[in-house]
């Protein structure tokens, strides 16, 4: 895989995480921390026309983990509500203008990392509703929740293969965070990475050939890409600074991620081929 020159898309330096492309590749949604708010923002894929889409809330409840629906009409995200000094995380959807908010998955505990299935009919997510973090799938309206993983370890960050036949995720079930994949019913779990340092937050490429993820295997956070069987790891970010949260452009021809290579936190994009 060849990595093209890096383009810096944002310059405000605010803390950011969780970028994702719109299905037409024209826009990027991401999370930004600014003026005491963790909000979801959208900009064009060249970094212009920035706007915050989640409303300015009085309680400034953090909102993160956006994922664009395949038809482009909705964004699923995680919404935090406070309860004393504790709280809960819910999964909500909204239209890309930040309106028509609907809470689709709730509960007294933590529901996070929502990702739409390629046909838009289901949402995979991470939840602690039965105890420790596990991967679940629900219908797109939040109903019919099914548990996919059953493990005392941490299971996080699901991502669908483009044909919907597999779900990759990260887990520390074997001692430290590694990338795994499984069938959409939770069966046939396959371990894809094996390194003493953390490998996490996988993102399946839209062409189905690769999985991008974040790893600390070089002693700092880097963005890597592997084949879907875990082979041929390639360091995409290759910089001593913090590089995390990769996301594929829908044509699989570019990755966007968060980097601190200029000492502040911004979004960067590299063409890959």
């Amino acid at each position, binding site marked *: 895989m060849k990595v093209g020159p890096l383009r810096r898309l944002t310059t405000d330096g605010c*803390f950011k995480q969780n970028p994702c492309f719109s299905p037409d590749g024209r826009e990027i949604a991401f999370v930004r921390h600014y003026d005491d708010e963790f909000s979801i923002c959208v900009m064009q894929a060249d970094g212009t026309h920035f706007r915050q889409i989640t409303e300015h809330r009085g309680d400034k409840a953090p909102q993160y983990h956006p994922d664009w629906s395949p038809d482009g009409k909705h964004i699923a995200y995680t919404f935090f509500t406070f309860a004393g000094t504790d709280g809960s995380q819910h999964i909500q959807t909204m239209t890309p203008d930040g309106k028509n908010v609907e809470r689709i998955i709730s509960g007294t*505990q933590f529901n996070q990392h929502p990702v739409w299935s390629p046909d838009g009919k289901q949402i995979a997510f991470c939840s602690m509703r039965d105890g420790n*973090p596990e991967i679940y799938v629900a219908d797109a309206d939040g109903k019919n929740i099914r548990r996919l993983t059953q493990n*005392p370890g*941490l299971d996080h960050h699901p991502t669908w293969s483009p044909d919907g036949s597999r779900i990759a995720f990260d887990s520390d079930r074997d001692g430290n965070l590694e990338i795994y994949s499984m069938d959409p019913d939770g069966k046939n779990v396959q371990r894809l990475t094996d390194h003493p340092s953390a490998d996490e937050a996988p993102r399946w490429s839209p062409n189905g050939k690769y999985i991008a993820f974040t790893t600390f295997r070089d002693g700092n956070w880097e963005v890597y890409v592997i084949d879907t069987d875990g082979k041929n790891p390639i360091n995409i970010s290759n910089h001593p600074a913090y590089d995390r949260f990769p996301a594929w452009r829908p044509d699989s021809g570019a990755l966007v991620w968060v980097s601190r290579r200029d000492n502040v936190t911004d979004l960067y994009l590299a063409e890959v081929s």
Partner: protein
Amino acid sequence: MWILGEERGQTCQGVTRRGLLQVGLLGAMGLSLPQLLQAQEAGKPQKAVILLWLWGGPSHLDTFDPKPDAPSAYRGPFRAIGSNVPGIQVCEYLPELAKRADRYALLRTIHHETNDHGIAGTIGLTGKAASGGRVMPSMGSVVARVKGYRPPLSSFVSVGKPLHQGHRPIQGEGGGILGAPYDPFRVEYDEVHGVQIRDLVSPEELTAGRLDRRKHFLETLDAAQKQLYGQTETSALSRSYEQAFALLASQGAKAVFELDKEKPGVRDRYGRYRFGQSCLLARRLVESGVPFVQVNWSSHVEAEEDYGDGGWDMHYRNFEIIQERHLWMLDQTLSALLDDLQQHGLLDHTLVVAMGEFGRTPKINEKAGRDHWNNCYSALLAGGGVPGGRVVGVSDARGEFPVERPIKPADVCLTIFDRLGISRTNLLALEIAPEGEVIEELA
């Protein structure tokens, strides 16, 4: 930790006969304690402390006391890495601090009796829990009392919003029994508004005439209060205002708060987020002669509080949250602070302390979190003459309890005072009876 004169006659932890004699001698010489200390310190480098208060209680296993050989239900998903000192390991997500282990000492066996944030915070900041309505002064307040007010800057500056437990401010962050005049002079930083001083409106809004009128009003108010209540001590209101007024009147002092006077690269190295720039401000304050600066990581304990920019209280999602934010921020900023203090020639006489009110349960809970753990936790101390590359205290194989050299928060407090040149005698002069012992391994 501090008890005002109620235990005279005791000889172990209380005020000694010798201490009382020394107090009497000061008075006979006609010197106040601050005057005496200033006379002693004349011509010597200013000793100072920067206390980085990691509110909420960081996990000791996931920072400075990793347990790579513990079962995974305790160890967690993070690795331990070696440092530049053979035998000292820290969490893998503190790589820059690992390169600087020769500059700091780690205490790995601090413990106390409570797992309540507010009480533990009070113990950590004062050395002792409040009892019978008596709240002991925080370390910074003791320093402010002992060193005296040195216009135009206070002797105790706190960078960050007041420490809260829920909606309540905790008891131990201020003057306690010494009185509100020894509360911290508070400044805050955020990315949008920069440095803010609570007791002031912005200089643009405050004309000289208006300033004089406010000062006159407050002087009148203060005089009326004294008449009414027979107060002889300066009120908290007037002390706070006096300090703010002195700041405004002093161009030099105001410049301390102008972070944009720093080179952009320096600001970047500290990190352009609240904790990073707060630590840069702490260095500038120490450089300007402030002997005690406390930097609060957050105002509230939970990560989601403070609008998602909160503390280290990770009952759930511990690993995800501290990996995404807390650990790299601490690693970058604390490393930058140590480097910067060294480059400015300040590290030898500035003690940097990073600690919270307790650690976290070695056993991971079912929500991928760690709960409160007061039975064993860690602190980092650097500079101020503290020998680097040293670990004091050994915790057990799971990080649950001390097995060698248990340390109390009162010991840490007394060690900090010792580094500032504040002795038991100085404290006794204030009718404060210290508990604990100076940690000899750090002498």
